[in-house]
């Protein structure tokens, strides 16, 4: 009798050469983008407060958003929102049994990236004042 194949979880060291399919990459980035927005929620609220409190604080916000570090954080947030929203719409469609087949799921994952990456790039260019 042949020995039974041992099925185990991969260890964290295996992640380096584990080839995750595109929907898997989309999925882990959905998680990472969600955590990023969760952690930066107070920053968003602080900026929201500055934008609304008064004419003066509105100008203060402009000054705060002028720093390159804040710009990078804002660009990261813009990417997180774009990816999380578009990947989320894909998940809602999957929940409706649309595009569940492997080929369709891969295609829709590529479509999400094809939309979210240029969208995030556009946000980044606006944030850095190029556009």
């Amino acid at each position, binding site marked *: 009798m042949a020995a039974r194949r041992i099925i185990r979880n991969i260890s964290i060291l295996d992640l380096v050469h584990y080839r995750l399919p595109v929907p898997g990459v989309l999925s882990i980035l959905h*998680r990472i983008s*969600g*955590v990023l*927005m*969760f952690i930066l*929620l*107070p920053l968003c*609220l602080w900026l*929201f*407060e500055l*934008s*609304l*409190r*008064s*004419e003066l604080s*509105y*100008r203060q916000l402009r000054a705060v958003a002028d720093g390159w570090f804040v710009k990078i954080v804002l660009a990261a947030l813009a990417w997180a929102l774009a990816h999380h*929203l578009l990947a*989320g*719409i894909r998940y*809602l469609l999957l*929940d409706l049994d649309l595009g569940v087949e492997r080929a369709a799921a891969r295609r829709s994952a590529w479509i999400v990236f094809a939309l979210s990456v240029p969208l995030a790039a556009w946000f980044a260019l606006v944030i850095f004042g190029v556009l």
Partner: protein
Amino acid sequence: MSIGARRLVVGAHYGLGDWLVQRATAVVLAVYLIVLAVCVVSARPIDYDAWAGIFVPMVMKIATLIAFVALAYHAWIGMRDIWMDYVRPAGMRMALQLATILWLAGCLVWAAQILWKV
């Protein structure tokens, strides 16, 4: 973790409800984003008065607060899923879940306070 031979302390059959709420709150947030985008585009050019003016009507205050409640609930379920996936020790998991709830509750109160000062 089990108490006695059969009873599990995890899994009170709230999973499906939470799963559904996460989808519902996602839809609320997507719709709110569209509404906000329309408001911003139609209020252009955006300066302080135009931007703050968006949040002056009571309808928009209530819609925004509902969006924040949906956001907090959505983020709670997502973060709870993450803690359940990656943090095994029950004590640490509960501490992280409690911290998540306090974090989100604090943000929610702050958001309400910001909105009602405009």
